[in-house]
């Protein structure tokens, strides 16, 4: 397959996980801070939005990693901005898939305390994804 197609695929797929993970963390945070008396359904709605955006982000990240691996010709680390990109990417990818599986298994049965820990890790993951995306962009736009 023409390598430029993989480049375009990587460019297209990488933005989804970054945006979706950030959105997921924000939805879950909103679900946590909405007062109980405002409405349980609104809380549940935010939680559901957080759940589905996370799952979609995790699924999207597989395509992004695969296309990235092809265009970098199997480089897992590299040099310069590529190394910076990977420094943030691999922990973010691991954390993202862990969080998605955890949410799938636990569903709505997590205690409030555990969910707060989950949310903290989700924000760390979103930050790592953002940093990986920043250096990926630097790689493409500013060498």
């Amino acid at each position: 397959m023409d390598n430029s197609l993989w480049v375009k695929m990587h460019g297209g797929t990488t933005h989804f996980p970054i945006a979706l993970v950030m959105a997921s963390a924000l939805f879950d945070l909103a679900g946590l801070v909405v007062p109980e008396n405002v409405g349980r359904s609104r809380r549940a709605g935010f939680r559901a939005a957080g759940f589905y955006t996370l799952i979609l982000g995790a699924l999207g990240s597989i395509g992004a990693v695969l296309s990235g691996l092809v265009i970098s010709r199997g480089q897992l680390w590299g040099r310069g901005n590529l190394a910076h990109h990977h420094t943030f990417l691999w922990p973010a990818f691991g954390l993202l898939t862990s969080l998605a599986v955890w949410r799938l298994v636990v569903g709505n049965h997590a205690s409030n305390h555990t969910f707060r820990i989950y949310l903290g890790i989700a924000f760390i993951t979103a930050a790592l994804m953002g940093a990986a995306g920043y250096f990926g962009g630097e790689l493409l736009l500013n060498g």
Partner: protein
Amino acid sequence: MSIEIKGLLLGLAVAFGLLGVTFGLAPLLQPKKVPEGKREQQASAVSGTSTDVLQGEAKRGYSLFDHSCAPCHGDDARGDEGPSLYDLAKSDARIATIIKGGVKGEMPSFAKKFSDADVQAIIAYLRTLKD
């Protein structure tokens, strides 16, 4: 065992599994490397291309190249994602324009990253790449 712990263990297992598959897949996508002995032979056959003998501007240019250009043009500048940079038949001014302006859809612009002195150092290094 609570469902939260089960979820955590399963999540970690899947994450490590996926990372394992990714890291296992990577070597299959890597271009075949020139054996170390053959590479040394090539380097010694080419006057001035061994990085040990680079001096001054060319040495600094190699350092810049290694950080920013090698990911696409290959560690040995013989081409990878981007073309080989050996025996360039372009003028210094043209090379500088390409480095600073990039090539649409193929190579990013390095205008913000490299000063004129940096570009000249890279060109000095590129001029040592001869077959």
